[in-house]
């Protein structure tokens, strides 16, 4: 496994538009995004027209496209933050980068603008090292290497299938934490990328990610929707769930997940205390979700992401279905997604265009 060369035309940048005026968002990202093809998916619940500045190479999808491609009965799956997954479905590129529309480019500790796309691509292009922890973090970064004691047979690493970035300013806390510390902002730029070790799990934040669509696309789906899911990140759990699924798939198939750089700057938005007033089941559900994923094992016969997802959906229904009906729905949604992926996601032509 050596470094892969990823071309610009192998990448789609997928943006889920939860706000209608994307002018400042797109203009701030222009120096980074301009090289790539973009897919913008408008939240089906958004009534206003999207405002997008000129000059980009992009395709825009809205409710009518979603209805046409997946059927209006299924379009509910793509409301709110989940609208971006429609973009993952219709993309024809090998790699996807996805950033929330309330984030702008960050500056690193030297004040230089962070090219989040280039850094994600670099993460995906270099191997991951999930089987042994390197104390100098990513050994493929310039100026770093494997440390003394790192077995040589593990130094070629595995393909990185998912790159999870971080956020300066408004960190991705849940509502109780943000409500308790309303003034806390993340100002610490940690200059590291690292591989999440095999069998270790983490909460994947969908705010700033990139992934190998061919490898893990079937597993990256917001199956777990909260009843009170809203338009603020701390009112969702969808990305946490899909991240756990992807990690199981990666661990089983010998792929890697990286976390750390790049950072994006996340704008202040929303009121955490207001969110707390709503009934918020996500916190309770995570108590079940984490032990479940930590213990789930894929059979040897599962050799693709799709097969892993089928297996996981069965286990979710068996083991978690009795705990909360939300999990039963999640299992069903995973299977629905696989059907959609087969029908729409893996065909060679772009639907509806």
């Amino acid at each position, binding site marked *: 496994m050596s470094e892969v060369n990823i071309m610009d035309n192998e990448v789609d940048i997928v943006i889920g538009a939860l706000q209608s005026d994307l002018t400042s968002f797109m203009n701030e990202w222009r120096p980074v995004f301009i090289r790539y093809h973009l897919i913008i998916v408008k939240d089906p619940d958004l009534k206003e027209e999207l405002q997008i500045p000129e000059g980009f190479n992009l395709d825009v999808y809205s409710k009518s496209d979603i209805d046409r491609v997946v059927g209006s009965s299924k379009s509910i799956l793509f409301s709110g933050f989940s609208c971006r997954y429609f973009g993952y479905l219709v993309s024809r590129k090998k790699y996807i980068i996805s950033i929330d529309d309330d984030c702008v480019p960050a500056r690193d*500790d030297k004040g230089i603008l962070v090219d989040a796309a280039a850094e994600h691509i670099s993460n995906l292009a270099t191997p991951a090292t999930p089987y*042994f*922890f*390197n*104390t*100098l*973090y990513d050994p493929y*970064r310039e*100026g*770093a*290497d*494997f*440390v*003394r*004691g*790192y*077995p*040589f*047979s*593990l130094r070629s690493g595995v393909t990185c299938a998912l790159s*999870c970035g*971080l956020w300066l300013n408004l*960190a*991705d*806390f*849940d509502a109780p*934490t943000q409500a308790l*510390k309303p003034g*806390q902002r*993340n*100002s*610490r*730029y*940690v*200059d*590291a990328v690292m591989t*999440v*070790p*095999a*069998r*270790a*799990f*983490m*909460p*994947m*934040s969908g705010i700033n990610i990139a992934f190998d669509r061919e490898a893990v696309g079937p597993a990256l789906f917001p199956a777990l929707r909260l009843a009170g899911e809203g338009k603020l*990140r*701390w009112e969702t*759990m969808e990305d*946490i769930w899909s991240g756990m699924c992807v990690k199981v798939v990666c661990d089983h198939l010998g792929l890697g997940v990286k*976390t750390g750089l790049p950072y994006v700057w996340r704008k202040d938005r929303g009121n955490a205390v207001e969110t707390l007033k709503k009934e918020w089941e996500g*916190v309770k559900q*995570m*108590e079940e*979700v*984490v032990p479940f994923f*930590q213990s789930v094992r894929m059979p040897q016969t599962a050799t693709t992401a799709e097969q892993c997802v089928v297996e996981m959906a069965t286990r979710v229904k068996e083991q978690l279905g009795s705990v909360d009906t939300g999990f039963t729905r999640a299992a069903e949604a995973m299977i629905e997604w696989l059907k959609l992926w087969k029908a729409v996601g893996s065909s060679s032509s772009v639907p509806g265009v």
Partner: protein
Amino acid sequence: MVEPANTANIKPHPYPLLKDELDIVIPTIRNLDFLEMWRPFFQPYHLIIVQDGDPSKIIKVPEGFDYELYNRNDINRILGPKASCISFKDSACRCFGYMVSRKKYIFTIDDDCFVAQDPSGKPVNALEQHIKNILSPSTPHFFNTLYDPFREGADFVRGYPFSMREGVPTAVSHGLWLNIPDYDAPTQLVKPRERNTRYVDAVMTIPKGTLFPMCGMNLTFDRELIGPAMYFGLMGDGQPIGRYDDMWAGWCVKVICDHLGLGVKTGLPYIFHSKASNPFVNLKKEYKGIFWQEDIIPFFQNVSLPKDCTTVQKCYIELSKQVKAKLGEIDPYFNKLSDAMVTWIEAWDDLNPVGASGQVNGKV
């Protein structure tokens, strides 16, 4: 280019944390000149110097430090025949210092490690950061993407189960190094000029079930929680291998910490590592280890400790049996090592009888 810090004008902290509960263990064969630079940070603490090599050489300790010093004659006198488990002509001998300490915490540092600067130019008080790390919980069961949630300015991220937010006691704080990186000999030979200039401002818990290569240059641990597992093995004179002492201890420690529900942190603090050892000498020392580690790592990855191993000593003795059974086939060295591991525990228990400190280690 990174430089060590200038500590000439630093005033010592008026109330140094854990002043009477922490010993600083330093192995040395040359001199202790480096202590001058560390004086503002180290002077309040008791030092245990383990003098390797020729015992007739006088190692001068700078004025003003409170210390005990042990040379090979002392080690032989104190341990008698059990002294065979303590390495000679290798910094692995430092673990003798762990054994004779009476304190709860140990900080160990190499004599070629200076004070580092953080990116703002401020000298890094490595000991203070280690203490912060070891006094706050670890989170081995679920990885927090914002790293140590107990650090100021950080917290648990969305999705982190609340039931896991209490964390577990931290047994080990593993620090890093700027300037000369801790590479193995082949990497040193290929990249003689590479220097670690990247200051990664993070501490994190190494997840349960994950192994790592522990470096003994800049390390703190809770002696009461994990001390007996910090045996640095048989290295140096008369042994077929060197420069695997700390890593061996780290693998044993991690497996036992995972079993007992204790945490291991890595990351800050940085020290400035000033001296690059000779890569050709290193290659001769490490060469067998490079082959052996291909078997050693899977061994540790697959180790399973029985439920009735509820103390570190019991875990360690069990581990020594498995080392003999599974690694003994690779080389007779592992049979010797397995026996030495048992001798170490016997010596540890002799010098640290249960009841003396009032604490039985293991699950807290």
